[in-house]
């Protein structure tokens, strides 16, 4: 397995280390995801001056501030809306959204499906830790069945969203999922997403050790991460017909990849063509 020590990537080159100590809990998977993202940006040689990192509210939203680039920490659920305006106004910027399962699928769900539909060139990174960590551990649209959270004291009975299925159905032209354990694979998935022209959606299975893990006796961070693929979601291997909202399994890697017209390109081309047609008619 390739590790970061084999490349010339040094995460400290990309972080606002003067903001340290950061406020992520010990064992939180978000830092691993951020490392993989920065590693991908490094390998693609994307200029930090030209990058815009737009994030929402929650633990995921706070990660953006630690990156030494143009960072925008916006309102809850709305980073995709802000990013849409930013990218349309400034196609020259590389726009990356960092969001969470609550930010992206609950309060921001409408923006996600329409961002997927439009296919504007940006990368949306959803850090899925199955819980509202920042507010103290409430149930989220991705909380596994029967898990305890502060608002499901008897265990979660709600159906679980499969964010990648949702993004694919809504039209995202590149969709992928990875676990933090596979950091180099996650880095490669980010590289694919960043290089893809269109809307890319990457779900990172992260872990909330401190709140969610503790509440559900899921072990320490290492144990949680090692069990990410199977251990903490035994019910996800159940019958998909009987439980249609429950994914049959959590596939990782690139799940969807289609070539579709990019929104900004098609908007500008469409207008240029129509304007020419109007001018020709009026002559």
């Amino acid at each position, binding site marked *: 397995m390739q590790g970061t020590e084999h490349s010339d990537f040094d995460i400290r080159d990309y972080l606002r280390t003067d903001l340290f100590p950061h406020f992520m809990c010990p064992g939180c998977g978000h830092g691993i995801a951020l490392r993989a993202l920065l590693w991908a940006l490094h390998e693609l040689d994307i200029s930090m001056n030209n990058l815009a990192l737009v994030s929402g509210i929650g633990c995921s939203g706070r990660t953006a501030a630690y990156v030494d680039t143009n*960072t925008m*920490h*916006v*309102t809850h659920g*709305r980073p*995709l*809306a*802000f990013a849409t*305006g*930013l990218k349309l106004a400034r196609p020259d910027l590389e726009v990356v959204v960092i969001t969470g399962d609550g930010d992206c699928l609950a309060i921001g769900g409408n923006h996600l499906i329409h961002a997927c539909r439009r296919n504007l060139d940006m990368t949306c990174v959803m850090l899925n830790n199955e819980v509202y960590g920042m507010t103290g551990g409430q149930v989220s649209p991705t909380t596994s069945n029967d898990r305890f959270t502060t608002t499901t004291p008897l265990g979660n009975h709600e159906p679980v969203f499969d964010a990648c299925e949702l993004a694919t159905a809504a039209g995202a032209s590149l969709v992928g999922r990875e676990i933090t354990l596979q950091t180099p694979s996650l880095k490669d998935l980010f590289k694919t997403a960043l290089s893809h022209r269109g809307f890319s959606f990457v779900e990172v299975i992260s872990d909330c050790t401190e709140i969610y893990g503790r509440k559900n006796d899921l072990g320490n961070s290492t144990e949680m991460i090692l069990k990410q693929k199977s251990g903490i979601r035994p019910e996800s291997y159940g019958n998909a017909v009987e439980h249609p909202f429950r994914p049959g399994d959590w596939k990782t890697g690139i799940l969807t990849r289609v070539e579709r017209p990019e929104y900004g390109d098609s908007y500008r081309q469409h207008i240029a063509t129509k304007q020419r047609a109007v001018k020709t008619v009026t002559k």
Partner: protein
Amino acid sequence: MTNSAQHRIRNLQGNHACALAAVAAGCRFYAGYPITPSSEVAERMAAELPRVGGTFIQMEDEIASMGAVLGASIGGIKAMTATSGPGFSLKQENLGYAMGAEIPCVVINVMRGGPSTGMPTRPAQGDVMQARWGSHGDTVVIALVPASVAEIYSQTVRAFNLSEQLRVPVIVLIDEIIGHLVETVEIPASDTLVVTGRKWASGPAEDFKPYAINGSDIPAMPRPGAGYRTHITGLTHAEDGFPTQDPAVVARVMTRLLGKLDHHRDLIDCYETVACDDAEILIVAYGITARSAHRAVHQARAQGLAAGLFRPVTLWPFPEQALRSVTRCAQAVLVPEMNGGQLCWEVDRICAGTPVSRLNRIDGESITPDQIQQRIIELAEHAGH
């Protein structure tokens, strides 16, 4: 001389005049969501923006529209949206973000009444207080209220200028009647139109503090891509842009933020006075109601009654010095409004000592000159005792 260099007289619907003024003021991004009675603003922007290399997008909802406008503005493009009462409510959180992070934006609100869906096609002045206090926490905002199609044009241009210069959201409150009214507008030649841009950060990126005040209380804005690599957040932030909870720092930055308009009242204040010098009965009215009041004042004067009109064009912050200065002779103040009584509270505060009466219509009809004249007569009789 080319067409664009000349003044042109055009017959325009208010909402269309708004869109044309926005483009003339340099707006190159519009994100919106259809809502009566403002939709013509979006429709006209959809037609106009492509012609000038701008971008129009109809978003999935009102909240997204406001978010996209702020994203575009952060990117350095003058941006606008238009809405009405219910949509305006939905935009409030992101409007607050624009206030806190000091992101220029213009929001057109072609008003209706409420609560809730109200009467979408009927006129009302329902959002006077929402414009000022609609977002949570303490707010800093400018609201303009034009009274004619020509003024929709001039005030929309002014909205962009104020927003860019002062880094504050500017709301233009338009009455449905004027939004849908067709009137003659003199479109200024492009070279005579005063268009103000944003002050962009320049100088070294090293140790740059995006909210530090250097000579001006309005910080220059760093343009993404220019190398400053700054942080923008809705969290209370220090001069460096990063969140802080240090009481001394918070007190300092919040005092600057909430007070920043106070130092620019010469730029912001805008009002009209009609026969105010010796006015014993003073009408304070805005928008379409001010036009009825204007006529009522003339009718009253013809009857020998000393009536006058104070018409705020900038509604928030309210031009309170100007109002105080015309209340010298006033024995009574009347505030006619097409709502249950909103601006009357502010007028009551400013005119402390002078009785302030209200005249309200909440039935989806405009207040007529005769209604106002009748109240002037009653107030004059009462004052005469």
